[in-house]
């Protein structure tokens, strides 16, 4: 297996990254099985110390923090993943279209993207979300669209480079339709930079949700999410209780983990290995 061989050759940093990401994914999938309590179940006193009953202590209204962390992984990761997928689909399809068609299609799409990028993302998201409300659905759509502008920029630039290659011209001369050109000629060749970007954008989306939650516009309570948990428990810090550091550390760890993998992938696709 080529993949297994590749994994065997992977550097230690990438392996650490993979372990982190894998643990998070497993946690997200198997929460109902491994979580000792329910997601919103109040089980004890407020801000309890770590103990055998409560591995990471309890939060500001007495819910088990370990359970909340696990559910938080599920909510945050799944929504971030969904948003990244969506933004990549929209962004790269538009970017490829702009590059292959050129002309007014390119002009129109690029100017719209310019306008969207002219606003600071967080302000724009806050504005839109306070208008349309903070349902998970709205959250996903708004962040995905905002994020797709950056994907558009990248995929358009990459596709422009590929578009001038003679194999694309050969396919055009053959009479291939635009979808075929995009799917078979451009997409496979633009994959390495796009996959690397996927990892990075996933991190940004993830942090973005966390900051939105921290501001109260992200995933809504009582659903657990890491950003929201930092906010809810922020007051504990003043009492010298390090409860909010746990979700913060989780955010940081996952971000670092994904980046470690992306770094390795970038290194591989840059051809420095071969």
């Amino acid at each position: 297996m080529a993949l297994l061989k590749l994994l065997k050759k992977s550097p230690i940093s990438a392996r650490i990254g993979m372990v982190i990401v894998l643990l998070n994914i497993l946690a997200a999938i198997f929460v109902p099985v491994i979580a000792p309590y329910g997601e919103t179940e109040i089980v004890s006193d407020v801000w309890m110390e770590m103990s055998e009953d409560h591995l990471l202590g309890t939060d500001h209204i007495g819910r088990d923090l370990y359970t909340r962390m696990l559910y938080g992984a599920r909510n945050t990761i799944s929504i971030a993943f969904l948003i990244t997928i969506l933004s990549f689909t929209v962004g790269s399809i538009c970017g490829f279209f702009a590059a292959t068609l050129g002309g007014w299609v390119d002009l129109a799409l690029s100017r719209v993207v310019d306008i969207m990028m002219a606003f600071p993302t967080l302000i724009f998201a806050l504005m839109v979300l306070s208008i349309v409300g903070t349902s998970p659905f709205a959250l996903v759509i708004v962040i995905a669209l905002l994020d797709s502008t950056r994907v558009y920029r990248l995929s358009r630039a990459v596709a422009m480079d590929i578009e001038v290659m003679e194999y694309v011209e050969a396919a055009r001369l053959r009479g291939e339709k635009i979808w075929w050109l995009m799917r078979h000629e451009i997409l496979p060749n633009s994959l390495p930079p796009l996959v690397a970007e996927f990892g990075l954008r996933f991190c940004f989306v993830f942090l973005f949700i966390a900051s939105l939650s921290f501001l109260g516009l992200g995933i809504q309570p009582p659903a657990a999410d890491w950003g929201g948990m930092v906010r809810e428990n922020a007051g504990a810090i003043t009492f010298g209780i390090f409860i909010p550091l746990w979700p913060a550390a989780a955010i940081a760890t996952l971000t670092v983990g994904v980046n470690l993998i992306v770094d390795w992938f970038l290194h591989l696709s840059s051809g420095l290995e071969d």
Partner: protein
Amino acid sequence: MSEILNIKKLVIEGLTGEEWIPIVKGVDLTLNRGEVLGLIGESGAGKSTIGLASMGYTRQGCRIASASINFDGMELFGASESMLRKIRSTRIAYVAQSAAASFNPAHRLIKQYAEAPVQHGLMNFSQAAKNATEIYERLLMPDPEKIGYRYPHQVSGGQLQRAMVAMAMSCQPDLIIFDEPTTALDVTTQIEVLTAIKEVARQHNTAAIYITHDLAVVAQLADRIMVLRNGDLVEENDCRKMLAEPKEEYTQELLAVRNISKGKDLSTLKDDVILEVKNVTASYGGVVNVVEDIDLSIKKGRTIALVGESGSGKSTLARVITGLLPPIKGTIEYEGTSLAPALKNRDKESLRKMQMIYQMPDTALNPRQKVRKIIGRPLSFYFGLNHKAQEDKILELLDQIELPANYIDRYPPELSGGEKQRVCIARALAAKPDLIICDEVTSALDQLVAKEILKLLQNLQNKLNVSYLFITHDLATVKAISDEIVVMLQGRIVEHGTRDEILAPPHHEYTELLLSSVPEMDPDWLENLLVKRAANG
């Protein structure tokens, strides 16, 4: 004669992955003052690497593993950087292949000329400028007083290459290394540069190493020739002796490259015209007409060669024919019916009948598609073949282009340049075309490989009766394979006729210039030509 350079047991290694692999394997080289040594070989032979090593330099990722490089009594291998810096450009100079890429576009020529002598404290700027004018004059540059004050983009390619030779001469070095200085030039400009180099070497008694893959070019300049292959010396001899009686088989092959015979009886062919270009004018953005009033007809089973220098509009004409660039004026007719000017309005069937092969096989094949998909796609696209029939047909095509059947599962980066070009040919053939447009298909390939590709194209034509529109600037290729020749100059056709008509006198003035500029394997060719041209005024 005294010895200026003596290299013994030169071993150079290149870093591949994590291993050092020898790329030059123990070559000895000696050079006397005033002598010109030609280094000949295909790409990967180690010519440039040896050339650079004689100044004690290697490219990044290479290292001199062991050697003794004795330059005028000094050992360069393992010498200190400061000593090497002193020697380079004052005692040894280097002329690179692409002058356009080697000049700094932001500075005037004369400033770049003066940089080395001023930097090394040999003279001040005004002295250097005076010297430059002298050398420019000797190199027959137009307006030698002023040309130095131009920027690199304001002079032609040939002039720029000569300016680079002048630059190499600026410190009056004992040795100049010429690394393919004329490869990127048209034949007519090549003559200017060759003459300049010859002149300079003679007048200053400068020793030179001349690196090229073209034996005919080196024959004009070199006193002695070394033939290299895969980092080893194949043969070394006096220039005239080598050309007269090459000993090694490989050298003989290199010498024979230019003689491919056509071996086709034209009289058996019917005069069915398949493609007619009528009165076509085209331009990019409507500003300047790149091609003007072109009339051209291509007959079935024939090879028509489109010849001209770079910028003459050859490739543009191909783009017009394929529909990539709709013409401003004129029509393109295919078997009597006129084709839509723009590609997107043409039907599948007319697209199928015209296929294209490109100059750079590296960029003409999608690196992420296997050979199976590259050749298979036209089959399913045009003929709707099912999986089994497609597989059989691909194998048949692989057989036709003389590649083994197991190549079907390879990706393009796993193929050599010649093999890639073969796959390009198979992709074109898969559409069962009547006409294949070949755009400089051999110019990116080594001579022996190019010869094989030409042979293959010839065989395929004999078998399949397909027509070729062969775009090239290489007249040797034209002589080898064409039936008809069209000569283009500045977007217009200046002469048109059968091969024998065009190649036999009397010629059009420009055709004459083109034909006479192709170097021949005769050491006296350049001298004779210059004498003849001088006599004709």
